[in-house]
């Protein structure tokens, strides 16, 4: 029976795991050219921004110092929200990895636009589901097959400058709080009712 359960479990598991075949090329961050110039300016400077409310003005373009045909390969630019090192401390699920497919430091996609030679910009309202943390913006230039070939970021190489902080929504709601209190009271209350009823019944029985 143990074997049967194991086989059944593995059947379910294998049929739902996404296959990782086809990644013949392994994109490494170290191999990317820093040929994009990215800036990120929050609309309110020096304060903690609120998710879902505040905006950040993001611009990206090819660096003036880039060589002539550096942009020949990229077709699309993917702009992502990345965690600054301070938001990665003691959080191994946000670890930076050289292998881009395993890198977890830039999980939030902002926008994906076709590459244009002229400078692009975007007024991005911080996503409501953005967690609390400190961030910077990074843009990847990807080729026809979707592999990253170049990048640019709004911060420096050590990711210490030009960072902005976001406060995520709490997810709490008054209606939820009230419902929670009501059900808790019901739980206590019904227990008390039973106790009292049974004590009364036992007293009656004793009198008999």
């Amino acid at each position, binding site marked *: 029976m*143990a074997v049967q359960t194991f086989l059944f479990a593995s059947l379910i598991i294998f049929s739902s*795991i996404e296959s990782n075949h086809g990644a013949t090329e392994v994109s490494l961050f170290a191999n990317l050219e820093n040929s994009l110039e990215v800036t990120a300016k929050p609309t309110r400077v020096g304060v903690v921004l609120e998710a879902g409310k505040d905006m950040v003005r993001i611009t990206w373009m090819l660096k003036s110092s880039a060589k002539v045909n550096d942009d020949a390969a990229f077709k699309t630019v993917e702009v992502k929200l990345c965690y600054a090192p301070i938001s990665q401390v003691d959080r*191994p699920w946000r670890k930076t990895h050289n292998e881009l497919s395993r890198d977890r430091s830039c999980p939030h996609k902002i926008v994906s636009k076709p590459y244009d030679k002229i400078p692009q910009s975007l007024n991005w309202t911080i996503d409501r589901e953005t967690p*609390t943390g400190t961030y910077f913006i990074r843009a990847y230039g990807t080729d026809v097959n979707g592999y990253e070939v170049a990048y640019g970021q709004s911060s420096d190489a050590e990711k210490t400058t030009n960072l902005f902080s976001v406060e995520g929504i709490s997810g709490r709601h008054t209606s939820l709080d009230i419902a929670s209190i009501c059900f808790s009271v019901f739980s206590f209350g019904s227990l008390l009712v039973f106790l009292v009823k049974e004590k009364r019944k036992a007293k009656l029985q004793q009198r008999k």
Partner: protein
Amino acid sequence: MTPNEDGSIGTSLHGVTAREQVFSLSVEDGLSSQAIRSDDPTAKFAIPVDSEHRAKVFKPLSFAKPHMRAFHLGWISFFTCFISTFAAAPLVPVIRDNLDLTKTDIGNAGVASVSGAIFSRLAMGAVCDLLGARYGTAFSLMLSAPAVFSMSFVSDAGSYLAVRFMIGFCLATFVSCQYWTSVMFTGKIIGLVNGCAGGWGDMGGGVTQLLMPMVYHVIKLTGATPFTAWRFAFFIPGFLQIIIGILVLTLGQDLPDGNLSTLQKSGQVSKDKFSKVFWFAVKNYRTWILFVLYGFSMGVELTINNVISGYFYDRFHLTLHTAGIIAASFGMANFFARPFGGYASDVAARLFGMRGRLWTLWILQTVGALFCIWLGRASSLPIAILAMMLFSIGTQAACGALFGVAPFVSRRSLGLISGLTGAGGNFGSGVTQLLFFSSSRFSTAEGLSLMGVMAVVCTLPVALIHFPQWGSMFLRPSQHEERSKEEHYYGGEWTKEEKSLGLHEGSIKFAKNSQSERGRKAMLADIPTPGTGTPTHV
């Protein structure tokens, strides 16, 4: 095991002392001090019972009052509490973003989630001994339901930890569940029954890994943000707890003959003193060995319930959904693994007596721990899953086997010993989570292997458990005239004054019923003399 097997020597002495205080029927019907066939007053039960009115047969598909009903209510209560306690684990990837948690915060909350039960399981043992299993279960369920609902108020690491700590108190239902089955079912099948009740309850830890992500997704579909959806998802375990609590109070019964308070008031069951119950539990060294052993079978299982989903999610880069399925299969293996352990313990007892039970326990727990070491070292997904499944079977079967031994450690303090052992499980989980999974010192994979090593080492003390009447892993039973009798061991829990008042009658009955733990060889050698060979009439 035929239903008519009156192997319990001594049923022929039934009625001779004229102090039958446990049988309400014999008093009411006026069949007082005459010799009573052990089948007669038990005709009102749907299942064959022994001299203590405990069921001799286990029928899992029946809901017959009171035995099978107690079994089902017991394991379902425990199942619900497991769902609540580990409900946060599969949702941690969402919660950690909402509350900006670090690995340390998550680890500490995991420790907190199992620590509360250390105290509540101890208290529950006493509550069961003194107030009955029904109230114990209902208190646990309905007093911790508010804690489950209060996840809607949590806003940072501190409040998250506090709520998980308070929810964890409900794991005390484990003790009330095992206690309830131990008073409802006879010693010969207690391994299997406790194994089923415990195992099916433990399954809750697996089911929750599937249930909570599913509930979360459904709530998100209605338009809620992730950070609201996970809070609302906790309402489901909360509702379940309230509903099951009400069912326990309305449908359950403490003892085969009625509810404890009724039996106590009519003088049929004597009230015991808590101080005595506590002292005899604590004084018995075997209690503490079981405490440690359970800490590294159930303790390991509880820890895995907290970390395994996140482990597969992070290490093998799976989706929340897939990681939940894998984590669930760990907990779901309990469905047959723990009963299997209990059954193996019962079979070993039939052949080799208590010594067989102890060896079974050691083998299962050590094998499980070895597979845990392998799990930590596995770097490919299929191997990790295989190692995890084998590990789950070994460890969970060991839990079942341990509760084949526990009911025999004490009769007077059965509840408290169940409580202490259960508390040991949580203590072990707290220790392992604190040592291996709460800091960045070890990666989760290293933590798993180290936990396996610690479990192997901490399983060795089972060799030290010795029963004078039955022996131990390496030693034979005592040859001493007095000490080799079960009555001496169980009678030793009562003082002379208490014995003269006849308070120890229940223990003596239990001692006679427990002679099955001598094993086949001893039973064959101990052929009853013709005088007691006809148990049906005197």
